[in-house]
């Protein structure tokens, strides 16, 4: 089950990443602004399972989208997360 907010359908990949960065800092303020778009949330920046699910919950709220458990593994970096969201918007 997945629906995309009309706003996100007009966002490009860079705009989505910018919003994801803001969300990520909100979840873990200690994370450096130097985080690269391809950096792995868990391996490179030490996000634990609780921080990751909080990050995903906030994505769901801000992008008005439902992300099933089986898709969580696809959300491992800013690039990957933006690509995932973009693909879902195209698929809608």
């Amino acid at each position, binding site marked *: 089950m997945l629906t995309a907010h009309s706003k996100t359908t007009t966002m490009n990949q860079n705009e989505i990443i910018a919003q994801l960065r803001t969300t990520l800092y909100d979840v873990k303020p200690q994370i450096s602004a130097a985080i690269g778009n391809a950096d792995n949330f868990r391996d490179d920046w030490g996000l*634990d*399972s*609780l921080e990751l*699910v*909080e990050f*995903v*919950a906030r994505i769901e709220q801000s992008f008005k989208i*439902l992300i099933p*458990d089986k898709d*969580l593994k696809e959300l491992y970096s800013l690039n990957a997360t933006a690509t995932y969201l973009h693909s879902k918007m195209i698929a809608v």
Partner: protein
Amino acid sequence: MNTIVITGVGVVSPLGIGIDVLWNNLLSSKTSLQHFNDLEAAGYRNTSACRVTDFEAPQITRGACMALEAAKQAIAQSNIQLPKNTGIFLGSTLGESMAYELAAEGEPIDPEAYNTFSIAKAIADTYQVIGPIQALSTACTAGNYAVGAAMAALQRGDIDVAIAGGAEPFSRIAMVGFTRSRAMAADGCKPFDANRTGMVLGEGAAIFIVERLDDAVKRGAMTLATVHALGLSCDAYHPTSPHPDGRGLTNAMNAAFKKSGINADDIDWVNIHGSGTRVSDAAESIALKNVFKNNMPLLSGSKGAIGHALGAASALELAICVKGIATQTIPPTPGYTIQDADIALDCTTQPVHKKINLVINNASAFGGLNASLLLGSSMY
């Protein structure tokens, strides 16, 4: 050291009110899991749970009402006249969580009046007893903690009788929290199973009459089980995940053996915590291998049948252990069908009739808490 025994059990569970109803349904591998329209109407992502559908109570005091019903059953079974210094030992994760929701919505409610202590106090007020009260909010280990605390108070001689156990009304706060943390099962709780996907929320209460063996014998009471020891530990690792090397439950079970002087090789049955989440079951399986090595007792779990009742969970499962000892039967594990290659341990799939002298009741909780209660037959 005084021997401590259980002489009465009372249960309010999603599989039935009263231990015999729960037990018979469990032996038939029934599950109480069902879809709830009210959860769907309110927009919950997970709309299935194990709730006590045949128990009516005011929502704001549902936990206390369930505890009082269970206490009434336990007192009746024990056939005891409660002494004035009876102690109350009650575990719950959230207490009356509906009160917190209503307070948040602007209702003139003092949430402090509905915490775990309020449930314990309701029992004390109802039976007009003035012994010590302990309210234990140790999350999903709270039932075991409560019975262990009762045991300690009886051994110290602080009290002559204890009413101990756990109570947890269905909590929408918990429903949302566990959903948000991605801990909920997609299709039912499957303890230790290869295809497990998470937990299912439950509710209920289980209350025990606990006393010294000498006193029970003196008044001619029937002893149902002996409480040998409570082993406690903390992972000190992560707010929600157990340490993956299983050190938490390993330490808790070993603590129970050390306190009681009983050897792991003598354990006949382990009632696993078996929440059905990937990481919790994996950690518990490692702990079991650490402790029992090549002499693994039979394993069973009941959260596939009654859900996870949080602070009441280990109390409800302790009631199942007591009934199992009394009938010399280990129940099946609803939800378990396929062995997980990584866990490499089997759980019961049918009732097993065998000599049961000693059983471990495992419980783990958020915060890294672990509590293993070591229980024995009244003859052991």
